């Protein structure tokens, strides 16, 4: 897992979860054209925790949205386990998200009318081979808060419910968009510990996007994104534990 890897480097197909080829995305906002992604080549491998690091507006969220089947590229293609994602229609993308992807968002996006347990259950009820909501919540350290509504939970707790919701269906990939962006550093680290534990114990391929360079030090690989391109990829020879991070 710790060998150096660059985009396009040769690996066996079984190891590759995502293969991204010459990906570009252009937005038209009024009369302005924005090139959010401009020729990305990338591979994400089974079981790795990758951090996509970039400034605001670098295109990292657009990349994550395309990987997650929320958005479609203007050019290029994405292969998920060797099958082309970018050729699928809306219904197929919904099924893909349902069966393979776990999402964690900056603003948690919990359902206020459902308890922690139920927020997880709403996903496990439609999943093929889920763990129980209680197990998922135990994994993020929330066994004591099962029947609390979002309004009764702190921001960090809400984000951990979101992580439990994302991993409860045993997804192949976990996509996290600024998971600590709305949290203070102490709470943020608790959330990162949860992500790290999921990655280690379940082996879930995890992509975390952030503009916080400190977080990159817990990843297997750091992929630097700037102006819609990959600016570089770092392999972390030594990974730090989340509790060793501070910002």
């Amino acid at each position, binding site marked *: 897992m710790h060998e150096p890897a660059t985009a396009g480097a040769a690996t066996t197909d079984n190891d590759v979860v995502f293969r991204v080829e010459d990906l570009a995305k252009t937005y038209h906002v009024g009369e302005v054209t924005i090139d959010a992604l401009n020729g990305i080549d990338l591979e994400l491998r089974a079981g790795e925790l990758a951090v996509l690091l970039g400034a605001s507006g670098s295109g990292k969220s657009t990349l994550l949205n395309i990987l997650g089947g*929320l958005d479609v590229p203007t050019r290029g293609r994405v292969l998920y386990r060797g099958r082309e994602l970018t050729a699928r229609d809306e219904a197929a993308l*919904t099924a893909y998200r349902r069966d393979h992807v776990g999402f964690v968002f900056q603003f948690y996006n919990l*359902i206020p009318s459902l*308890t922690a347990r*139920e927020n997880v259950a709403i996903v496990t009820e439609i999943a093929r081979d889920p763990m129980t909501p209680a197990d998922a919540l135990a994994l993020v350290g929330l066994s004591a808060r099962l029947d609390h509504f979002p309004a009764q939970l702190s921001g960090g707790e809400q984000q951990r419910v979101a992580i439990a919701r994302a991993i409860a269906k045993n997804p192949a990939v976990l996509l996290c968009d600024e998971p600590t962006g709305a949290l203070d550093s102490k709470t943020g680290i608790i959330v990162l510990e949860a992500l790290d534990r999921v990655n280690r114990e379940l082996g879930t391929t995890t992509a975390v996007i952030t503009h916080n360079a400190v977080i990159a030090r817990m990843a297997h690989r750091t992929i630097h994104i700037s102006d819609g391109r990959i600016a570089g990829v770092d392999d972390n020879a030594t990974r730090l534990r989340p509790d060793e991070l501070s910002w």
Partner: protein
Amino acid sequence: MVGGTALTRKLLRDFWTLRGQVLAIAAVVASGVAMWVIAFSTIASLEATQDAFYRNYRFADVFAHVTRAPDRIAARAAHIDGVRTVEARVSGQARLAVPGFGEPVTARLLSLPNRGEARLNRLFLRSGRRPAPGATGEIVISEPFAEAHALHPGSRIAATVHGRQRTLRIVGIGLSPEFVYQIQPGALFPDYRRYAIAWMRRPALEAAYDMEGAFNDLALELAPDARPEQVIPALDRLLAPYGGTGAYGRAEQVSHKYLSQELKGLRASAYVVPLLFLGVAAFLLNIVTTRVVHQQREQIAVLKAFGYTNATVGLHYVQLVALMVLGGAVPGLLLGAWGGHGMASMYSEFFRFPFLAYELQPATVLAGVAVALLAALAGTLRAVHRAVRLPPAEAMRPEPPASYRATLVERLGLQRWLDQPTRMILRHLERRPANALLSILGIALAGGILTVGNFQEDAIDYMIDVQFGLASQEDLTVTFTEDTGREAVFELAALPGVRAVEPFRSVAVELVHGPRRYRTAIQGLPPDARMHRTLDRALDEIPLPHAGLLVSQWIGQQLGLHTGDTVTVELLDGSGDVRHVQVAGMVEDFIGASAYMRTSALNRLLREGPVISGAYLAVAPGQLPEVFAALERRPRVAAVSRRTAAIESFMETMGRTMLVFAFVNTLLAGSIALGVVYNAARLAYSERARELGSLRILGFTRGETAYILLGELALLTLAAIPVSFVIGRGFCRLVSVGLASELYRIPVVVETSTYGFAALVILAAALLSAALVARRLYRMDLVEILKIRE
């Protein structure tokens, strides 16, 4: 600072963004304003027309009938304190035969002075002229009758006047303030083909009715400060020796009574219906404004941070509300003016004025708009107040997640059967029960209004079924010129085509119980009457008791009578005699209000022999023309009426009007249903777009997210339907009580199909709203959703 340009632009753009809901609310406001304008402009127009007609054509204040009184008595009546003008007339009943119309026609004949115009109850001549002085065969005929038979000056008509055949020549077509509502006494609806008013010069009528130098009908105009109650006792004393049946004021005059009851009904509903609509509009505006203020928290904070005053911010939202109201008020005014016009012309079919000037007064328009604005502001006060009070710093912070808790269903331990989406629906509803209840109430209100729309048809059908299918089953009613012996029954029974004859006695009386008095007729019927029956509330026959009186429920209520009470009967035959009789029961009748006795008991009460006033006839199928012809030759037959004729003519004129009413009603109520459901749907969507978007990202299909959104709507709609039945029935009861009069009482009968129709319209409105909102859900941009902060 007020309405600064940038703020004004924001106002207009917010308005445009809200256009879907604005449209739904505008439809409800428009309905309310339209109903307001229709009601008040119709009332104003009718009252102005009535007032002008009464004044210009000198409608009398007091009316009296006598058997025969010499002219000098009229002169003495003029000297009664408070009397200003006296008009003595000769009046009688005649039968007419209109060429080509095979059925008998009853005419009321009234005298005009030999020269010039009458002092009171003057004629308005639509065409032609008055009869020439001294002319014996010339008449002016009432306009609706002339229209119904295409008669015109110069037409000739055969008549039986006081038993003598004559030919009358129409010289004029006219109207009188005395007959604005031209209905034959005892009839349910006006029947312009079978009832006419005809005016002749007095000498001609004096000769026909042996009334030379005498009169039998008196009309009085009072001094401006005199009241009928002050004059009537003296007048009654004066007329008593001449067979006076008791004088009465305008309030008891048939045409005036109908007209004023109609106006009373209009006035009663004038406020209720528009305010219902505007109340719903206020509720919808409250929902929309609350949501807008909530969504614009940060904008409000920024405005305030940059120095806009609380008042300016408040005014900004008030202007938004005003804009939404005016968006509905303007089309409402146009619709109201159009509808008012239609209403007025419909009224001119039933109330015959020489002219009906429809006028839409500026005051009506202003009041309509003002009431709509006031209702809207009252509804949105709280939301606007929140915008005004919002501290800028607090508004900048995102709001915490909304608080929810487990619902009652779950606390009862039933959550095992509920999946998460269903729990979301229930908790969302339970979180704001007031909103949910008001939505249910709003939808139910629409259903209630729909129910009332069709109820009137149901009720009229039922009234006709009961009255003409059960209570009176005769084919013809024959009335004699004067009471006669029972041998007339055998004479009628012998006519070819007559299958059965049932005699009746009818006596005009005033019933007195304590301080209350009621003028009516006692109908004497044979104990074994089959054609004319007395029914109780359950439509079971009440047998006529050996002695004692059955009274109509209505009379019982008016006089405070109960079974077993003794009522005083004052005879109106001019004798001044008084009797006492016990009330043996109450009769449920919908049309008219009478009292009933066995003929034998009635004759005993009157201390008379076995006399009858007329008879009900059953006629063999297809034999009516022969029977009509035979009756035509009998001079002592004063009038012949066919049971179903009036209903047929009513249905002809009213059928289309009722259809139009039902259509307009459906449209208005539909606008409420759509407004309420669509707004509830739109609110639910905007409140939950983010969480529904999140679910879509987590892999929920469009159908699964639509279930969460539309399931809530479906629950509200389904809960509202039974409530709408209850409200509808309540409205029907109100209408029934409000319109009840001695002329008719509308029973509260609502057919299943009427409920079904209301439910269908509600469901259609819900489906349409669901489709509109589902379209948004379908087009949802998932990437955008992620960018929204809680």
